[in-house]
């Protein structure tokens, strides 16, 4: 009979660990998607600057408060602007950036197809 409470306690602790592991995973994922604004060419995840350390703490707190990943991104975007996100948003300034690879791809495809049929 003693076995049951011990089993319960152990299983609860293990579950907590799982929960925590999930949190750390999303925490790291978010930090990797953020640009460290005071460093050059580093993500928040990679940086050990005071700014990045605080930001990682904020992300952790926000996750614990129950905010979703998207909510955290939009919070940071509001505070620091779009530049903090590594993933550029599709807008007037980034049309070219997003569409150029597709255009080049299509043009390349067209050339290949044209040559192929010409040979035939």
């Amino acid at each position: 009979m003693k076995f049951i409470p011990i089993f319960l306690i152990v299983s609860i602790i293990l579950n907590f660990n799982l929960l925590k592991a999930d949190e750390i995973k999303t925490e790291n994922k978010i930090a990797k998607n953020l640009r460290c604004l005071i460093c050059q060419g580093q993500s928040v995840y990679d940086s050990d600057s005071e700014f990045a350390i605080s930001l990682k703490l904020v992300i952790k707190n926000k996750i614990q408060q129950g905010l979703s990943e998207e909510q955290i991104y939009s919070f940071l975007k509001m505070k620091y602007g779009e530049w903090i996100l590594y993933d550029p948003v599709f807008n007037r300034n980034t049309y070219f950036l997003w569409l150029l690879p597709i255009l080049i791809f299509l043009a390349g495809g067209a050339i290949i197809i044209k040559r192929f049929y010409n040979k035939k």
Partner: protein
Amino acid sequence: MKSKFIPIILIFIFLITFVIFFKGLKNSNIYTPSTELKKEVPSFELKSFKNNSIIISEKIFEDNKYYLMNIWASWCVPCKEEHKFLMKLKKNERIELIGFNYKDNFKKASSFLKDLGNPYNIIVLDKDGTASIEWGAYGVPESFLIHQNKIIKRFIGPINNKDLLEIEKIIR
């Protein structure tokens, strides 16, 4: 016809690419955020430097006065540079200075203020730096000029004589 056309296009593309990259060479690769903003002051609940009592932001910025919220730390060397300008600003009655003690040691911060003087009306503690993230701050030193519960200007880095004159001009 075809063989004439392709080299011209290629040269054209090469030239455009060259011009874009050549222009890019001269751009600064350091990100500078905008300093003119009209954002609401973020609310916070922080411990006071003096007696560890809780200070609420709504209580600080309630008047129709100007405020300069200055993020500082005793370990930050540029903060020492800007301190004399803050001391000058203290003499102006139209503005109140709010200190935001960033990730600091109490003893060292106290001796910093003892040596260089205390320009702040209120100092709050930001032990882990999370409160300054709410302000959208980058680090120390950084200052926000506040009027009517709005951030009207921000100064990233130490305040110099030029900034001081600008502040005095705004609050006049």
